């Protein structure tokens, strides 16, 4: 999953029918995650009712389509969890964050 | 998909039999860049296959499998992925990038793209 923060919302009426009634959030990733496209933000379907400013976990691929009920839904990324707390250890000797 | 210009065909007698009778093209990815209009007039339309202006994008050339008979000098659209390969040339071919369209012309709005 991708750890990120909800920073915005997108409204669209002309869209694939399998996206009806789904909330689309703009997510700023907290880390680089080797995205399939070299883009520094994400649009994800919000499956758990995350609010702007909350840290979330974004899941890529089939799980989001399962949540939407059909593999025919063009959903590449979905918010699957709202993060309460992140604890990071001391950065190790090889400079990992 | 990636837009690219066919800059060569890659021939070879000795090859893995899963490449037999398949045509490999050397393609230079390009970025559409409208020529600066003298008066900065409205977006230009040009036939890209007539050597229209295109800025090479990145250094790495791609070698892709031709499926539509694209020739050197033509522009093509390349799609990537094993599923795309399976849907076009078939899973037995050792490639993940195939030509899915030969470009007739392309147009970019000078104002929109910020050059």
């Amino acid at each position, binding site marked *: 999953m*991708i750890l990120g923060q909800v920073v915005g919302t997108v409204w669209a009426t002309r869209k694939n029918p399998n996206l009806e009634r789904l909330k689309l959030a703009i997510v700023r990733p907290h*880390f*680089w995650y*080797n995205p399939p496209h070299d883009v520094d933000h994400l649009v994800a379907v919000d499956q758990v009712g995350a609010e702007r400013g909350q840290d979330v*976990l974004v899941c890529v691929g089939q*799980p989001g389509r399962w949540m939407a009920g059909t593999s025919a839904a063009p959903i590449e990324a979905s918010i699957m*969890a709202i993060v*309460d707390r992140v604890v990071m250890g001391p*950065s190790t000797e090889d400079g990992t964050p | 998909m990636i837009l690219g210009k066919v800059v060569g065909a890659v021939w070879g007698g000795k090859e893995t039999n899963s490449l037999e009778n398949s045509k490999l093209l050397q393609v230079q990815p390009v970025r559409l860049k409208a020529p600066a209009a003298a008066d900065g007039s409205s977006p230009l339309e040009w036939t890209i296959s007539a050597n229209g202006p295109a800025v090479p994008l990145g250094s790495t050339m791609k070698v892709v499998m031709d499926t539509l008979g694209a020739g050197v000098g033509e522009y093509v659209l390349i799609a990537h992925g094993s599923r795309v390969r399976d849907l076009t040339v078939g899973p037995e071919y050792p490639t993940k990038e195939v030509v899915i369209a030969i470009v007739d012309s392309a147009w970019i709005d000078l104002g929109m793209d910020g050059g």
Partner: protein
Amino acid sequence: MMLGRVIGEVWATKRAGAFGHRKAMLVATLAREGDRLFPTGEVVVALDDIGAQQGNVVTVSWGSGARAVFAPPDNRHVLVDAAISRIVDAITLDESGRVLNLQHEEG
């Protein structure tokens, strides 16, 4: 599958899908040069079912591979795309059998 190092932990109570009791760990993926492991800069969150600790070097499985860690791959209630599949104790570095031992710094 990728090599990674556990660098943190993520708590998420409100979540879709059966994480169950499992923890979500922050993992920095690693590349290797000779006998040195170094971070690629990529950081992901992987679900952990085998008790990986802070600092452990692990393998991370993706997509359907991740779901296979928990249940049959077409299991539709495990909603994850990355999972820790092994805690790595050592890596054999070359044909002579030289081994890079990985002490697991506790949290």
